[in-house]
């Protein structure tokens, strides 16, 4: 199986590589359109700030490529947020795959949310074998409100989308590569789609 991680200098890629290695897979880090188009699985990572990340995607034309992909695509953290239509962070227009608007936590909770939170209302193949209320590791200041593409929710002052799915596009707010065995199961499920 050919797995690619989209390279747009989005930080902490090494952890995803190592997590895949622990599952017995290797992935290629690339920004090459042909390689991305022909891969079996595409991982779209992301750490950092939305508008500068989006600029990097635009600079290489990845912003038009990603929404056209036909194979399973997994956006992680900021990757998931960039797959939405808009982010309040830096007034950023996203890739528009999910019709959701990313907003900042602002209702009496500490920001960023850092740590292990439970994921509930699991309704995607991504969560096969993952139990309701399982704990995943999250680090984020902005969140995706619950919308029609929501396939898992978490609660932090309010209920929000901790995972989204539309057709072949999957997005998780949590870091499966850092969420112990439960996170590894999510990655494994993605690779088996």
């Amino acid at each position, binding site marked *: 199986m050919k797995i690619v991680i989209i390279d747009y200098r989005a*930080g*902490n890629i*090494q*952890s995803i590589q*190592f*997590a895949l*290695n*622990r599952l017995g897979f290797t992935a290629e880090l690339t920004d090459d359109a042909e390689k991305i188009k022909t891969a079996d699985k595409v991982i779209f990572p992301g*750490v*950092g*700030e939305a508008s500068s990340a989006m600029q990097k995607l635009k600079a290489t034309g990845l912003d038009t490529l990603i929404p056209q992909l036909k194979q399973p695509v997994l956006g992680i953290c900021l990757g998931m947020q960039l797959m939405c239509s808009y982010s309040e962070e830096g007034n950023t227009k996203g890739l528009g795959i999910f019709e959701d608007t990313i907003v900042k936590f602002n209702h009496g909770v*500490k*920001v*960023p*949310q*850092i*740590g*292990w*939170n*439970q994921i509930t209302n699991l309704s995607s193949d991504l969560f096969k074998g993952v139990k309701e209320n399982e*704990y995943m*590791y*999250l*680090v*984020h*200041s902005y969140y995706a409100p619950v919308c029609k593409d929501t396939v898992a929710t978490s*609660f*932090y002052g309010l209920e929000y989308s901790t995972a989204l799915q539309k057709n072949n596009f999957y997005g998780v707010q949590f*870091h499966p*590569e*850092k*969420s*112990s*065995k439960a*996170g*590894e199961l999510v990655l494994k499920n993605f690779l088996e789609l």
Partner: protein
Amino acid sequence: MLTKRIIPCLDIKNGRTVKGVNFIRLRDAGDPVELAARYAEEGADELVFLDISATEEKRKTLSELVLRVAEKVNIPFTVGGGISSVDDVGMLLKCGADKVSINSSAVKNPQLINELVAKFGSQCIVVAIDAKMIDNQWKVHLVGGKVSTELDLFGWAKEVEERGAGEILFTSMDHDGTKNGFANSALAKLSTELNIPIIASGGAGSVQHFIDTFTTGKADAALAASVFHFKEIEIKELKQQLFNNEIPVRL
């Protein structure tokens, strides 16, 4: 629900894990990668690696260790000690660290916090603050606690938050190594006045101390070293007892 985090801290010197009592006497406590893997397996929520000799010796050799840890460990970890530039941070994150912690360098050059946040995001920038009560006032200390400053803990913590740090790791030097409990009143004040997560450090000696720091101390996470290294407290048992005391934890 977001859970309270238990964070074993691995103080690193010359590639080995050590733990000082009041920052001075050091004892050897094992191989860091082995320990890290064991803690992850036992249910630790996060790990912190602090190269305690780094600031003093101007050493920046953590990257190899970070790479080895990232390869083996499936929970997040923070690296600190002697980190003083955007390049240092970039290198450690590239090797697989999830967060970096800066301490003395932030006090010497507060603008560094802004620069790191702009480049890497708040979520991976932890500012560690060592403080000691002097004449009834919490004073910030540097270089592993060796150098005192005139900075007030709460004023500095507020500034750190305003400059965009994602988290504060507060070590009470008065409590560190004593096993008499965490500095809960200072922690509660930090946690109330600030809107970023606070990690309690220094003083863990019993399960009750952890319960106290999450309730009275309002801490978001608690860090300890020797009680875990020397197996005086087992992480699984600790988390079960926290759960029994209605503190949200990941079991």
